C-alpha cells in the first residue's frame, strides 16, 4: 500500500469527464480530496491524497496521462526556500494541517510536505515570502 498526495490538472476538455471515478473503479484506489478548484468548461485542478497498491497506483497515473490529465506530486507545488527562511514562525500559526510546525525547543520551523494539503494559507502569511505555491497560478 502506498499513499501519495497528487496534484491533478484537467484541461478545458477533460474537466467534466468521470476520470477520478475511474481511478476508484478500475484501479481500486482510494482518495481524499484536499483541494478542488473546478470551473465548468475551464481548466481545473484537484489535490488528492491517493492510496492503493503501488502497481495499481502507477497504472492509474498512466491512465490519467492517457486522458490528458497532468499530474505531479504535491511537494513539487509548495516549496519553502530553506536558505531564506528566517524561522520566525508566522506560517506555523496559520497552517491548518501542522505541515509547518515548530521544532521545539530549538524553535526551527520545519516543513513536512507529507502533511501539506496545498491550502496555500502560508504563502501570504510568511513575511519574507519564502514559501511559493504554484498550484493556483498554473491551473
Amino acid at each position, binding site marked *: 500500500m502506498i499513499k501519495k498526495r497528487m496534484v491533478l490538472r484537467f484541461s478545458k476538455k477533460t474537466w467534466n469527464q468521470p476520470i477520478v471515478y475511474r481511478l476508484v473503479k478500475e484501479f481500486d484506489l482510494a482518495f481524499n480530496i484536499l483541494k478542488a478548484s473546478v470551473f465548468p468548461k475551464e481548466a481545473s485542478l484537484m489535490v488528492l491524497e491517493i492510496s492503493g497498491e503501488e502497481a495499481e497506483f502507477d497504472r492509474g497515473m498512466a491512465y490519467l496521462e492517457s486522458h490528458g490529465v497532468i499530474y505531479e506530486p504535491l511537494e513539487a507545488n509548495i516549496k519553502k526556500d530553506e536558505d531564506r527562511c528566517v524561522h*520566525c514562525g*508566522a506560517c506555523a500559526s496559520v497552517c491548518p494541517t501542522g505541515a509547518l510546525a515548530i521544532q521545539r525547543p530549538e524553535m526551527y520551523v520545519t516543513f513536512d510536505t507529507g502533511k501539506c494539503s496545498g491550502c496555500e494559507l502560508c504563502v501570504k502569511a510568511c513575511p519574507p515570502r519564502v514559501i511559493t505555491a504554484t498550484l493556483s497560478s498554473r491551473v
Partner: protein
Amino acid sequence: MASFKVRKTYQEINEKIKKGNVVVVNAEEMIDIVEEKGAVKAAQEIDVVTTGTFGAMCSSGALLNVGHTTPKMKISRAKLNGVPAYCGLAAVDIYIGASELPDEDPRNTVYPGEFRYGGAHVIQDLLLGKPVVMEAWAYGTDCYPRKYIKKDLVLHELRNAILLNPRNAYQNYNCAVNSTSRTIYTYMGTLKPHFGNATYSTAGQISPLMNDPYFRTIGVGTRIFLGGTQGYVAFYGTQHTSDVPRMPNGIPTEGAGTLCVIGDLKQMDARWVVAASIQGYGVSMYVGIGVPIPILNEEMARFTAVKDADIVTQIIDYGSDYPQAINRSLGTVTYRDLKNGMIRLNGKEVPVTPMASYPRALEISNILKEEIRKGRFYLGEPQATLTQLTTGERV
C-alpha cells in the same frame, strides 16, 4: 554603590580580548554556569555574555546621502522604487522608513492587504546590491536649480548609507490573542477567532535587554552586532521607559526598554536585515541585533542567567482591547510556556507560535561570541547608560 565581591572594568575585559584570553559565553550557556557555580564564581570566570534578537522592528529606516548631480538639486520629494522617502533634510539627504508604502499600494482595500513592497524592501534591495530607481523632484533655487531627476542608486556608490532605527529590541513584549469572532491580521501575525491561537515576539532568555534589565551596562556608545556588522546604541529608543512593574529578578512584566541603534548599512548583510510583508498590517523589517553584556560583577552574572521560566509577559486581546487602547491584561504567562507552544486561557488550551526567530537570535549571540573571542569585537563602554539618560543620574 553596592559592594561586590567581583569587580571588573570595561578596560580590563578589553585587555583580555586583546590578549586572546577573554571568556565569552552566550546567554543560554550562562544559565547553567550560574546555576552550577553560583553568581560570584561565574562572574570571576566569565567576562562577557552575548545576547541576540531577530524580529520585526517597524521603527527602522536608512539615512541615505544620494550625492549631488550636475546641476545641483535640493530634493524636496523622492521615491525609491516607488516608495516615498522623507526629504525634509539637507539637499541630498533622504530617509527611507522601513514601513513606508508606495502611494499606489492598495493597502487594505483588498482585505487582508498583501503589502508586497515597501521601504524595507528598498533597503533589502540595496543590501542585495540591486540598483534602486530614485525619482526626485525639487522646486529649484538659485544654488540648486535642478528640478527633476531619475537615476539608479546602488549601495556601494552612495556617499553614505546609515541604518538608523529609532526603536528596536523591545525589552519585553505582549503575547497576543483575539477574542472576537473573526480572524484578525495584526503586526503580531494572524490571530484566529475565539482565542484560537496566541503569538509572542521576543527571544526571551537570550534577548539583549532581558539580560540587563536595569540597563546597567547598555547606553550611548555600546557597541553591538547590528545587521551583520558592528553598530552602536545611539540613545534610548522611542517609547523607552524603565518605570514599569518588575519581578523580583528585575525583569519588567511588560514592554519597558527600547534601543535606538545606528550603523553603516554598507557593511551590513541581507541575512540580518530582511524585509517583511505582514499580511493585513503592512511592511516591516526583521533586524538582527546582538548586545554583549560585560560581567562587571556578580550582579551582572545573575542578570544574564535569567531563563525563560523566570520571564513573564501579559496576554493582550488584539481583537478589542488593544485597538481601543484599553490597558488590560488577560493573564500572565512565562516564556517557558510560550516556547513550549501551549498556554491556558479561560480554562482552554491555546496553541502558541513565535513571531521572532529564536534560531536566528541564537546564531547572532554565537557570532558575537566568536568575534569577541577572536579579538575582532571590543566592548564599547557607554558614555551614559540608558538609566543615566532617563533618570538624570550624574554620569
